[in-house]
């Protein structure tokens, strides 16, 4: 079995990966502290409980990322000749499904509470020798809970763009959106304070809806990836021209009559084939190897390319230009 070459990241990207790993460890610690604070302040508010579950779920993507990064470092082997890097997408699939499942459960919970017309009881706690309404403690906890995710999400986002890592990008976007959870929770508690018992369940419903939405969006991203989709930028802000680079290079070669490129993404790397119809067949093996090697070096995001020669392209070039997306 011919095993793929191990992937080598350029130095700059390698540093970014280390930074991403560090940030995910910090995320784990910070989110754990948020979970602790929320657990202490929770009481019987449905919105607080839902926000707490969402904060617990925020641990899942970093755990998925850190476990996958460990496996991904292994070089391709006899058993996995294509390498181990797809484990990242699989880990994220697990995370996305978990989020969706919990989103559905939480929505059900919130609707049930609304139907049962539960009036949330929020009493007082002893703080510094005085009886203080627990709602204030909840609001403080919710305010704190918005800070670490938003800060960390904002830090992770540029890394995700530079590393062309959709999984990290999805995680960063989820973190950044967490301020809405805290805001909704606070509005729910304030609503209770004004005697609007349903405000609590309504806020819980909004939060659960956002959990489900996060899960569905992540699910869409990872499903597309696992289905070997053609390479696209991580978001509107990434400069992504891998396909064009390869086509321009091959097109300029004098010995190439016609060519076609087929690429897919395997997580954060591009792999694929270059189909060449040569003008002449002298030195063909050496030329094909040269093309593949040079094309691989055009962009750090390209991992593996194979160049092959065909007698003709079977006139299928016209079909390709009708592609969608």
């Amino acid at each position, binding site marked *: 079995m011919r095993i793929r070459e191990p992937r080598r990241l350029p130095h700059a990207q390698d540093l970014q990966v280390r930074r991403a790993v560090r940030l995910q460890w910090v995320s784990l610690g910070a989110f754990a502290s948020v979970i602790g604070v929320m657990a202490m302040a929770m009481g019987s508010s449905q919105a607080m409980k839902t926000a707490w579950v969402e904060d617990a779920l925020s641990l899942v993507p970093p755990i998925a990322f850190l476990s996958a990064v460990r496996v991904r470092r292994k070089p391709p082997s006899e058993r996995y000749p294509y390498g181990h890097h797809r484990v990242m997408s699989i880990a994220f699939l697990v995370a996305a499904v978990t989020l969706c499942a919990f989103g559905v459960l939480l929505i059900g919970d919130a609707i049930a509470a609304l139907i049962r017309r539960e009036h949330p009881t929020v*009493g*007082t706690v002893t703080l510094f020798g005085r009886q203080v309404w627990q*709602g204030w403690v909840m609001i403080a906890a919710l305010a704190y809970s918005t800070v670490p995710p938003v800060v960390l999400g904002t830090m992770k986002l540029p890394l995700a763009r530079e590393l062309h890592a959709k999984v990290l990008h999805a995680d960063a976007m989820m973190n950044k959106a967490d301020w809405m959870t805290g805001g909704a929770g606070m509005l729910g508690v304030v609503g209770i304070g004004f005697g609007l018992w349903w405000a609590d369940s309504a806020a819980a419903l909004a939060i659960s809806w956002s959990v489900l939405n996060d899960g569905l969006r992540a699910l869409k991203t990872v499903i597309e990836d696992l289905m070997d989709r053609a390479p696209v930028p991580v978001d509107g802000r990434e400069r992504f021209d891998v396909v064009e680079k390869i086509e321009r290079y091959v097109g300029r070669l004098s010995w190439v009559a016609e060519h076609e490129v087929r690429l897919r993404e395997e997580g954060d790397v591009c792999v694929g084939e270059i189909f060449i119809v040569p003008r002449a067949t002298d030195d063909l093996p050496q030329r094909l190897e040269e093309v593949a090697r040079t094309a691989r070096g055009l962009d750090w995001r390209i991992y593996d390319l194979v160049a092959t020669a065909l007698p003709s392209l079977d006139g299928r070039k016209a079909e390709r230009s009708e592609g969608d997306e």
Partner: protein
Amino acid sequence: MRPRAIPALIALCASHAALGFTACERFPADPQETTERVARERVLRVGVTEHRPWVQRGPDAEPSGVEVEIVRQLAASRGARVDWSWGQQERLLRKLEEFELDLVIGGIDERTPWQERVALTRPWYDPDAPGAGLPQAPLVFALPPGENRWLGVVERYLAAHEAALARRAAEALR
């Protein structure tokens, strides 16, 4: 788009909080306006169940005991008289859940399964206090669910008289 909305949301919450502080008297509110009604009608509707030594039923159906005394004094502090309803505790708690009573007493255990359906106060009796004779769970009063201002009133009263309550509980157990 989104990051710019953060200061707006913070301002929204801060203004809510400010509103809350200014309306401190009525914040948090009672969805069923229990506190207002007690003040307006000057009546406290209390459900009682006999549970020695905390609540005892006299020959003339007049309640007595530590918990009864606490409730009488609480009512007096609110300028209200007490309307006692004797009954089986489950029935009384159900009436409480439906807002037909303002308070239910009778040796209610803090761990009662009713904690999900009605509001329980902080314990007025703490078995960990020195001198407590019989092993007991912490005892609470039950209030209608979600009446958070009323709960605050009762809990503040219990907190303010904490030492006196502990003393009277110890005496009752001797």
